[in-house]
């Protein structure tokens, strides 16, 4: 699944800079992600990894540089941007399910309003996706009635319903109780195996080892090191990566 029909990476960031006031949170970022590739972004808190993830669908606007998705430059605002976002799935740390809608409505909303599918068709597809992430029996409940792990799997189904070209995961397991982490990671591994292009901000080494093609290590707003998972975890090149790994692996 790493074929490149047009020779162009699916997601490409070149020379991206972003400031939060005085704080230079993204510094001259260059990153290309190919079709079907799974990239795990790792780094200490405040390293800019979440901002990087959110910049890819312009939840955070950038100040300099260029981001392209499937060869198209990310538009500034308006209809074009909405259309592009429909092609980029996003899964948040805090799930962000629509609190006033049932699980089924959460998943079917985008296809009906954005893809203009019929309600019946969208709900049929939504039930299939809920089946796939293992929460079909919760379809008619409201998000608040579900456990965190269930909510996050619904959020993944909601993103999948748009048939995205790439999926972004912004620390998808950080808000979960430990016993729920694996049910979410299993779904993600399944997606990766099916060839979904994914950018995953996470500290889950296990996931990175099982599913990732590449690990990108960030610190201080820069990409410090890029490597295959095994290489990165066993013999990191930079001092900062060594320091970071020593801290999280002692846990």
């Amino acid at each position, binding site marked *: 699944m790493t074929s490149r029909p047009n020779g162009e990476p699916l997601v490409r960031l070149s020379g991206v800079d972003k400031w939060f006031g005085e704080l230079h949170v993204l510094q001259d970022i260059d990153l290309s992600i190919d079709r079907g590739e799974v990239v795990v972004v790792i780094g200490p808190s405040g390293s800019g990894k979440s901002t990087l993830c959110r910049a890819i669908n312009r939840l955070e606007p950038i100040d300099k540089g260029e981001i392209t998705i499937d060869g198209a430059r990310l538009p500034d605002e308006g209809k074009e941007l909405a259309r592009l976002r429909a092609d980029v799935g996003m899964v948040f740390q805090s799930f962000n399910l629509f609190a006033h809608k049932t699980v089924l409505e959460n998943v079917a909303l*985008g296809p009906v309003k954005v893809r203009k599918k019929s309600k019946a068709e969208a709900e049929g597809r939504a039930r299939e996706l809920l089946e796939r992430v293992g929460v079909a029996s919760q379809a008619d409940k409201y998000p608040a009635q579900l456990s965190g792990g269930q909510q996050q799997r619904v959020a993944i189904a909601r993103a999948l319903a748009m048939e995205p070209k790439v999926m972004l995961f912004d620390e998808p397991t950080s808000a979960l109780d430990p016993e729920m982490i694996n049910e979410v990671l299993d779904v993600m591994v399944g997606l990766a195996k099916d060839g979904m292009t994914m950018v995953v901000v996470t500290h889950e080494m296990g996931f990175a080892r099982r599913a990732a093609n590449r690990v990108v290590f960030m610190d201080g707003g820069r990409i410090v090191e890029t490597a295959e998972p095994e290489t990165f975890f066993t013999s990191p090149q930079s001092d900062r990566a060594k320091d970071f790994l020593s801290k999280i692996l002692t846990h």
Partner: protein
Amino acid sequence: MSPVFDNIDQFVDGFLTSLEIILWALAGALPLGVLIAACRVSPIPPLRAFGTFWVTTFRNTPLTVVLFFCAFGFPELGINRSFFFFGVLGLVLYTSAFVCEAVRSGINSVPAGQAEAARSIGLNFTQGLRYVVLPQALRTVVPPLGSVLIAMMKNSAVVGAFGVGGDLWSTGASLTSAQGYPTFPVYVGGVAVGYLIITLTAGALLQLLERKVAIAR
């Protein structure tokens, strides 16, 4: 109380005129206020500036001045409509600023993640507001919005002084000064009761609505 019962037909007429002013103002101020609130939270800077300008202008100007501008300013500019139209227009413009701020406070009470999730599945700004943010904002908006609307209903008394006439307040003025009825029973027994019928009914409806949106979650 006899001044009221002797003139009950005038009070009923006045009541209906006031009700008419209020219903038109409601039909104008609610959608306009929501629209201005949408401008104020919009991602487009000129729209935000426009929304802020609107609220600043109409929230900080006394109602009588807004009404005065409508009733006398527009005709000076060559725009001639009925005083009823101008009166309702003034009330709508003034109230829309307060509706906007009540709605905006409700929008702000919805976690930012909800709007981000809406955007990330490809909903545009208007869709996100309509399908995701506003329905959730409604729950917190109902009480402050209710106060704004009840204030508007009472403010409709001021419209009567700008050429409209025949509303509850003007009816009271007509009975007391031209027809010589004593002030106290006319205003307390007739005018105040008339407004109370409107505002208490509105209050009860709002309470029902509040209960309804509170359950639907």
